[in-house]
């Protein structure tokens, strides 16, 4: 997988992950171009399109488009499953996820994505182990944070 984009129906980028080094300018250009193409497609159309030398696989969940770019020989259907799995993971993590969750916790969304995919390849095919890893990392973060909150209270007091 070359990259993954999340954007809203209004054409606002919500998440982007690039698995190959791309110059910032090209990224912007590609994102703009792709959003235009994908948003212009009618709902009954199939989820695949050929774009430049890549294949684009996208799927719409509520108001969010999940859009992946894969290579010529890659399997489109499994990419759709990847997207779906990612949505499931988000859903499990946030508890019926909505666009706002991803906007306000965008770093969490990235963490989940990073636990699930790495370098464009699926890291773990089991949902459970991905969620477990994230939970534990979050736990670690809370441990980090808790002593500071005590200090904060001290500071306030």
């Amino acid at each position: 997988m070359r990259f993954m984009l999340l954007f809203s129906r209004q054409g606002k980028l919500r998440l982007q992950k690039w698995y190959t080094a791309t110059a910032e300018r090209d990224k912007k250009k590609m994102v703009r171009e792709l959003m235009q193409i994908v948003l212009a497609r009618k709902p009954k159309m199939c989820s695949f399109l050929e774009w430049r030398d890549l294949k684009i696989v996208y799927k719409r969940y509520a108001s969010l488009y999940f859009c992946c770019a894969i290579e010529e020989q890659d399997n489109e259907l499994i990419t759709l499953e990847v997207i779906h799995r990612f949505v499931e993971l988000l859903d499990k993590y946030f508890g019926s996820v909505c666009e706002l969750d991803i906007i306000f916790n965008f770093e969490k969304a990235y963490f989940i994505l990073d636990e699930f995919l790495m370098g464009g390849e699926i890291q773990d095919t089991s949902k459970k182990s991905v969620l477990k890893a994230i939970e534990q990392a979050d736990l670690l973060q809370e441990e980090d944070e808790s002593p500071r909150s005590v200090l904060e209270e001290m500071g306030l007091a």
Partner: protein
Amino acid sequence: MALKIVKGSIDRMFDKNLQDLVRGIRNHKEDEAKYISTCIDEIKQELKQDNIAVKANAVCKLTYLQMLGYDVSWAAFNIVEVMSSSKFTYKRIGYLAASQCFHENTDVIMLTTNQIRKDLSSPNQYDTGVALTGLSCFVTPDLARDLANDIMTLMSHTKPYIRKKAVLIMYKVFLKYPESLRPAFPRLKEKLEDPDPGVQSAAVNVICELARRNPKNYLSLAPLFFKLMTSSTNNWVLIKIIKLFGALTPLEPRLGKKLIEPLTNLIHSTSAMSLLYECVNTVIAVLISLSSGMPNHSASIQLCVQKLRILIEDSDQNLKYLGLLAMSKILKTHPKSVQSHKDLILQCLDDKDESIRLRALDLLYGMVSKKNLMEIVKKLMIHVDKAEGTTYRDELLTKIIDICSQSNYQYITNFEWYISILVELTRLEGTRHGHLIASQMLDVAIRVKAIRVFAVAQMATLLDNAHLLTGNMQRNGICEVLYAAAWICGEFSEHLENPVQTLEAMLRPKVATLPGHIQAVYVQNAAKLFATILKNQEGNTDSTAAQETSQMMIDRLPLFVQSANLEVQERASCILQLVKYIQKLQQKDVEVAEEVSALFAGELNPVAPKAQKKVPVPEGLDLDAWINEPPSESESEDEQPKAIFTKEEPKHSRPRHTEVDEKELARRREARKQEQANNPFYIKASPSSQKVYQEAPGVEHIPVVQIDLSVPLKVPGLPMSDQYVKLEEERRQKERAEKKKKEKKKRKEKRSGRGKKHDSGPESEEDITPAHVVDIVTEEMPENALPSDDDDKDPNDPHKALDIDLDNLLETTARRPLADSEKLPVRSHRAAGAPKSPAEDGEAENATPQEPKKKSSKEKRDKKKDKERDRKRSKEEKKKKKHKREEKEEDLLGGQAEEAAVQSEETKEVEAQPSSTSAEVSDLDFWLSNAPVPSNTQEAATVAAAEADPAPEAPAGTAADSEPEEPKDTETEESKSSKHKKKKQKKEKEEKEKKKKKKHHHHHHHSDGGGEESVQNGTVEEEEPLPPMSNYCLLAENSYIKMVSDGDCDARLWKFVLLSIC
């Protein structure tokens, strides 16, 4: 200190956090840019503070802004600061920011090397994990080189969480630092059998990705993957493996044969569409690569087509699309199986989804035959009428032309039909492809001589009704066909029925509204027509007719002389003067027709589009050399012979052109055009050159009168193409009937000789004879044209560097062990550094001279005896070893590979162990050859191994090169030596039997059926006792690396001193 912290947290209270920022942006929809710029100022202030929490918060906000498209590269150093925080919370944010913002040219990346290394070896697995994830996004060649060894170590980490991440990131490391592939590969391969499914699937992922790019180096892994494929139930993994096999089979057709069965089983059994689709795709790939070798695959093809039909019939648009896509792959090799589903594909043309319709069109392109071309095109024409969007309609139009003109009009049996199709297409409103239709008309008329009479008549009608086309003209759309029509009527005017009428049509005042290049062609061809008319009329007794024609020319041409278009103007005034002169001569009753037609005598032959490019450069001519001193930048720009050599330019462009960027070029071009347009002395290139007429210069300046026609256009007097479909049908029927008659006669004659002959089946392709005897003139090419076509491989492909021979690594004989230079860089202060050096020496020795492989059979036998002895001994040691194994549980992974390696080293005939690092290369051949295996499996293996093994003295490079040819070689070798082999096997069998009798108890596991099967399937039986490992000397060991040497083998084998690093 405490005060500082307190101060920090008070500061923090007033900071915006990420949520505030997001909310703020949402509340400032009108002046978002302004709001964000104030936010960035705040962030800059925050980054100046010492408090890491504040910094992390700032960096987090920056990451968000980066996604919105703001440049945050200025904060790169702050990101590094946050990355190096000891607290996981901040580290996590730091790495996230880095992975989003860093790229290869970020200069602070150099600073991160040590930090990342520290994090990689952190006791906290999530620190390591976060570092690996981040690194996977911004790894550079430098980072890859410096950290490769650390990551490799992590591949054997105790925690699967780390192992799987380390395995995955290795792929990125390989891409950036290809030298790391060879040293890391054995361990990577080991991970294919990792007990953790996540790690295993990660390893499969990485190896599959590697193998897809350079399949030939991974052929030897086929048995192992085959085993994984037949045992795995994880669809994600299965898909990867099957894809890998798809890449391998073209190199090894025998592999394909082996694959068909399990794949068809999967196709039958799986419920996952993604897996089904992958299987079908791979089966198609396999069958394509086998198409010459295996005759009995029609069942598999049928199965694939059947399944694809189900996909296409599915209501899910995605499946429909993919079904069509896969169908088009089958089409190339098995057109007949696809053609039977024509109905379904034509049905897809009606689909709501445009991308599905386009796919179906692609398929139709390959499905046409002489028999069904007219029918398919008729259907497409109906779609053209129905199509609403212009883009889709244009797509249809190009497809119709593509379909008809493919492989040199191969499928067209009736060109009259084709011409009428083209004429019908001119009725399309607002198409962009007028020039396409025009070039087809020209091509057919020029190259198919038999059709000229018909074509000329059609074109004359077109010209006569030009007002219908031009009335509908939108910019340079369909009126392009008038260009072709005028040219055809002029050039082949001898076929015109009523040339005077056509001439009249070409000189109508309305013509002046056409684009310049078309007018120019009109004027020129009017002159040709005039010449023909003169010739016809001069024979007559009445000379007034000829004079009338001249008068008409003189009356009409001044309109063109006034044209704003220089080309038209010039031609018109030349011709006007000529006609005036002719008129003078005519009045003196001088015969001029002969001379006038001499002006246009001679045939124009078609020239191949590539002809110019193919003219070989004469020896001694350097096209890149300057003829004169290079001029300064500013001048000579506008003197370039643009029209003629535009195609050449990229090839022979002078270096100075490449330096100018595209924008600049475009600007200059614009300026040049402007200048040319204003320069009355600038003569534009002749419009007879193809390129110019496609570019249609100056079309915009011509006033276009648009007439709205609500009634669909029907050019009167034009034949409908449908007529031809009917006619053709009748003609074919007639032919068939005649043929049958003939056959009956023949049969009657033959009946006395033989019994009843089978009835002639349905009409085959060859039976259809073209309606006219058609001579398609081939395009002319220059003499001694170069046949070469440019190699279009991308030299910048990062995967090219990974084309590294890996098999040698797996061989115990280590034809090319890792050289010193190939070792991954290790930090010098590491403990492992010192004990490593002697080992390396040993390896280096290993690499030096090897005994030639070919040995006399006697020697071999001797060796075998030795080995027998070895084995006996090893059996005894096995018992001891079992204890050891229990003790060394954790070491098992490494040990296993090692043991197997040794075993196959000392006793080549020992059963092939797919899990071993060694046996695969040599046994791949054996594994692939499904020949019935005699009871002495080992011997057969030996023979196969000996044969498959490329001579050890061959340098590694050539060995790698010969890899893809191997199957051929061995096959021929096999056939050659089959006699020899049989003898040998017999001998060995006898020997074996003797031995068996002697030491039957030792051999039970070799001779029983289970062992045999395990070889064939390439599976390892768990119960199988492991080969000995007791004869290892430990050379060096630390927590990462253990080095052992095998010195306890036969003296003869001492040359293969074995070193294992695990």
